[in-house]
């Protein structure tokens, strides 16, 4: 195989982008999976997509539009999730379809060529610039840093929000913090992965890790590993077969999830007994 391609800056940017985006997205994914809010992430990623298109149409930065609209979606969704509504899916379904509708409306209203809009839809990691990498690096560092700094508060909130509140932890603040970070992660990954596919990179690695361990720390590490692996394998296939990178990354992450589900020890009723799946704390 000709490896000279790795000498080019666009490829180095793409490799770094998948590494940083994989870590950020998968870490956020652990919250999404364990807090049972996959639909919230879907609604927010489509809101970001609509916001980016609004930016393109009106001539301001798509990143600002994406961040603003995903946070607006979080502001509507957050209280529903926080109150533990029995079926927030109905409201989320309305928001999700509204955002997708707005995205296509902005795309339709946009004058001239739609190539930049389509790029946001499918993602094009090979056109990432050094500033994209820097943004991804900042967000990935913030996400990982906050998880490390507030690990115990996050762990308690994930386990049971009311219980976390009852021991004096600000579970509401943690929940909104998670939604804010989700918005930021989606925004900086949008151009690389694409508005329609970004949510798979959030959900799939974490869902795969969820199948394999009974330790939350290990779940964060495995998810980040799967996120990076999905990005790199996807990038390789994208380059080899000249196909959209967002699609190959998402398909790879889905295959990893499928394999994790097939080989999950959690599927076997007593599988955990034989193996020390938990970290020894003593």
């Amino acid at each position: 195989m000709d490896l000279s391609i790795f000498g080019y800056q666009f490829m180095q940017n793409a490799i770094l982008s998948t590494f940083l985006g994989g870590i950020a997205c998968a870490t956020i994914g652990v919250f999404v999976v364990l807090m049972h809010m996959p639909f919230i992430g879907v609604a927010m990623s489509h809101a970001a997509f609509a916001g980016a298109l609004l930016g393109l149409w009106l001539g301001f930065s798509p990143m600002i539009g994406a961040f603003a609209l995903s946070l607006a979606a979080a502001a509507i969704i957050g209280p529903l999730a926080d109150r533990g509504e029995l079926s927030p899916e109905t409201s989320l379904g309305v928001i999700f379809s509204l955002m997708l509708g707005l995205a296509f409306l902005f795309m339709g209203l946009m004058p001239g060529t739609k190539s930049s809009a389509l790029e946001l839809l499918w993602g094009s990691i090979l056109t990432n610039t050094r500033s994209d990498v820097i943004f991804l690096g900042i967000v990935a560092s913030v996400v990982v840093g906050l998880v490390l700094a507030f690990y115990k508060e996050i762990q308690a909130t994930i386990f049971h929000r009311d219980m976390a509140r009852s021991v004096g932890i600000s579970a509401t603040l943690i929940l909104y913090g998670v939604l804010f970070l989700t918005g930021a992660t989606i925004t900086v990954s949008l151009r690389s992965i694409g508005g329609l596919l970004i949510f798979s990179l959030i959900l799939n690695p974490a869902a795969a890790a969820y199948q394999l361990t009974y330790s939350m720390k290990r779940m964060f590490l495995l998810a980040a590993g799967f996120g990076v692996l999905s990005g790199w394998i996807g990038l390789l296939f994208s380059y080899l077969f000249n196909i959209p990178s967002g699609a190959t990354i998402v398909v790879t992450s889905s295959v990893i999830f499928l394999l994790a589900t097939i080989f999950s020890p959690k599927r076997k009723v007593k599988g955990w007994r034989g193996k020390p799946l938990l970290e020894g704390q003593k």
Partner: protein
Amino acid sequence: MGATVIKIENAVVAYREDVALRGVSLEVKSGDFVGIIGPNGAGKTTLLTIVNGLGRLLSGRVWVLGNYLTAGNGHSLRKKVGYVPQVERIDPRMPMSVREVVMIGRYGLLGLFRRPGKHDWEIVDEVLELVGMSHLTQRPIGHLSGGEQQRVAIARCLAQEPEIFLLDEPTASLDWKAQSGIIELVRQIHDSRYLTTLFVTHDLSALPLACDRMVLMKQGLIWGEGSPSELLTDENLSQLYDMPISEVKRRREEVTLAEL
């Protein structure tokens, strides 16, 4: 009997259009073991949640451990109030061990940016031993039975080293042997740790023996208050649960037989 530690003054709480408490007043002294019973929707759980500041008052005041509860001091007061909520199904794949779940009880006390140390893990192991769960410390929390999960919830509450102990139907959906085991455990902990305990339940069988005082609730109001022997008559229970006296008698006999 000790000094007053909880004073609820004319508390009114509503969830959307449903009024859960309609002007409830109650005083609890240090060391009291108070049993709270009543039919569904009587406001029992809400009464507990206004003591730990999770419930929002429409009007009235709640005084806990020397302070009136406000929006600002709820977090700090909650650290001294242990709360065992109603049993909820825990995701069997939840990536947390029994020991980690009990450690959550220490998190509020530890405060931000401090990790649990050796002393904290020792306390966790000690309370797990106390509730008879030391053989299951490394097991995933979602793999426990209902009774075991309740014991873990009690251990988590004790790891918090609370002064007030709030239990919301800890015996619900357990078999009668597990029920009496939990009630005995709670009473033993209450005595040995000098706690003030509020115990909400539907289970009339063993609770009266454990309680010093009973509070009967109905339709968001306190319907009766006093010692178990004077309050828990067939006539009172018949009126409380809107049930014929003969039915109350029959059920109480069944419960007594089950305990034999």
